[in-house]
């Protein structure tokens, strides 16, 4: 083994907890990209992203918006004929890019994901009044007003909690997270 792992090795290492096959077993059939409901918003299809990971095109992979647009529906993972956990690959690349601060600046995904994970890790439940501002300010004024209006209505109906809630035994939950999620970088 070489001293410095290649980019595709690094991504494989990040996926060590998932049960799928390594990205190297991809046969480039395109089932993932054909299946993906958000493929048309991605600059690279999931299949191409895997090809680029295997070719160690680190800069191009990290500059892509593909993994930030993944909706985590896991359809690709279910259908992949090579049994690669493709949604897992997307998460691996997300973590990698956050730890290395190497995502493109114009995306809301990284800030949103980071805020979401932090809220969950702190309280065990999602709290929208904190989460929403991570992406709301990137919206057009009209959308922003609409979104604020919706949020108010939902709050009045009790669909969004006014105060943050917290699960019981939060210490145990945090201990679990520490064991499950591979922690890299500085976060």
């Amino acid at each position: 083994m070489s001293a410095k792992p290649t980019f595709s090795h690094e991504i494989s290492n990040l996926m060590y907890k998932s049960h799928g096959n390594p990205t190297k077993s991809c046969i480039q059939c395109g089932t993932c990209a054909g299946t993906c409901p958000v493929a048309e918003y991605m600059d690279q299809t999931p299949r191409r992203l895997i090809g680029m990971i295997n070719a160690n095109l680190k800069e191009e992979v990290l500059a892509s918006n593909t993994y930030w647009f993944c909706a985590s529906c896991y359809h690709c993972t279910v259908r992949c004929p090579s049994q690669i956990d493709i949604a897992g690959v997307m998460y691996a690349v997300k973590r990698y890019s956050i730890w290395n601060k190497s995502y493109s600046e114009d995306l809301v995904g990284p800030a949103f994901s980071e805020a979401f994970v932090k809220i969950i890790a702190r309280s065990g439940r999602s709290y929208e009044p904190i989460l929403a501002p991570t992406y709301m300010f990137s919206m057009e004024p009209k959308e922003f007003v609409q979104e604020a209006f919706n949020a108010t209505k939902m709050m009045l109906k009790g669909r969004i909690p006014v105060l943050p809630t917290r699960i019981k035994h939060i210490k145990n939950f945090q201990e679990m997270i520490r064991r499950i999620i591979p922690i890299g970088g500085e976060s």
Partner: protein
Amino acid sequence: MNEEKVGVYVCHCGTNIAKVVDVVDVATWAGEQPNVEVAREYKFMCSSLGQELIEQDIKEKGLTRVVVASCSPHMHEKTFRGACERAGLNPFLFEMANIREHDSWITDDKVAATQKAKSLTNAAIARVVHHQPLEPIPVEINPNTLIVGGGIAGITAALELADAGNHVYLVEREPSIGGHMAQLDKTFPTLDCSACILTPKMVDVGQHANITLLTWSEVEELDGYLGNFTATVRKKARYVNEEVCTGCGICIEKCPAKVLDEVFEVGMGTRKVIYRPFPQAVPKYPVIDKENCIYFLRGKCKACELFCPTEPNSIDFTQKDEILKLQVGNIILATGYDLFDVKRIPQYGYGRLKNVFTSLEFERMVNASGPTDGKIVLRDGKTPPASVAIVHCVGSRDENYHKYCSKICCMYSLKFAHLVHERIPDAEVYNCYIDMRTPGKGYEEFYHRLLEEGTNFIRGKVAEITDAPRIPAEEGKLVVQVEDTLIGRQRRVPVDMVILSPAMEAKPDSKEVSQLFKMGCDFDGFFTERHPKLDPVATMTEGIYIAGACQGPKDVPESVVQGAAAAARVAGLINRGTVMMEPVRANIDQDKCSGCRICNNMCPYNAIVFHEDRHVSEVITALCQGCGTCVAACPSGIITGAHFTNDQVFSEIEGILWDVRPEKVLA
């Protein structure tokens, strides 16, 4: 101490063994062991020079035992036994130590490998001094052959053997021979009419004096061994007397009951309850489908009997299943394949979306004698499709279903594309493939022909087929959603008809069949050949051969090749008339047998008889297969298995454990 003189030969096998095992060390060490007269190492023991080395030593040094430490006995035991025999030594005074498959190929650890090579060699030395000279047992080969499965592979094998003057029993489960090939319209890449090339062969089988055709029959039991098998075949009741029936077909015409034909027409058409699967069926006699027959259900009707013109009447409602005992020397299995059940992939919508077809359904549709008279139409039976998508790799090359490539789907999918172009010239055809696999004579040329014909090829595995439109153009169509991987974009292709090309898979009962015939089948259910390259039609069981798609996905030419190859192997044995079998047999010491009869029922070959008068059991050598069950079962320990005596086995164990200290064993 034993007085035997053992010669030990350690093989390098090029670098196969020598790369990991220190063969020089093993040979030197072996030379110091008791009884060893001479120990040598040599580059290739199996070469003529290597064999001459053994012969020379036997003659000059007076060796009485020989050990070769090299590869598996499967490879070269015969070779070295031959060398011993040529030098005048009984071939059974030889023993082989496997230091390749069991040692050098499984580790990179040189020290451990060399140590293990010593253990294995030592075990062989310890064993070989107890060997006794044995004489092979001659076995007569019954010249009759049983062929199971009447598809193109079985038909070819049957005709080859029968034409050479040997008698063949061809057993087929369905009412007619022909198999899947009879269902096809055209065969790739030459586009010959499938029936036109198959039916002459079927007729030959039906009329051949040397072939006993047993359709609507199944093998239920098999006893015996190479040269002397007894197969029990159930000939299911046809309710039609084959001796008088002329095959005129009036009964079929007059039968009032119609049912969906799930087998031959794969649910695309109907058949009468008394039926022949297809017009050119061989044999021509119809069969009554008892489950749907009005007479069998309600006790009334007998229209067929009423209209039958033969004298005496051919219809016989009292017919019973017949059990036949066939004496055969060899068996060829050509049981064929099934198509993957496409309903297992719900996103392709088969069964839910009505214009999604399977390949076999489409084959029947384009067949001139099929349910639509060769017209390509949607399920409504009249509208020709303006666009067709053909989906490759349905259940093949997919870890969720079958890992293997089914090999023939690319070619028949191309054939379908061509047939659509031919019958509906304006239709758009889309072939969605992962990789285009067209290895074979004239196959790649056929692909190019399709490229020229204007087929739209989309490189991508189809993700899903849906009838939910997103844009007006998709309204009322089937939408094939697929990534065109060559342009890197997801595409939604609206079409009228979708044809799925499912994987070829083993018959659902292939595991039971392999147990019945006492041979192996792999994880996917395909029968295992003796050697994947050099012995593709033999199995690990002597006298049992395989041909066609029961061994793995195959097209017609390859099935024909295998059918003929299996026939050649069988013909070779028939020609020899007698083969020599290993004299590894059990023997009961008649003076010491207490007559407890425990061994009698244990024997899987019914090879032990009990003499009531003398109150002792005896092994019939001709039937014994040397499995050793009785040897282990005998409470008095007076049954010996030749070549596996207690002395031989125990000294082999002691030999292999030479470096284990007693306290280690206890701990």
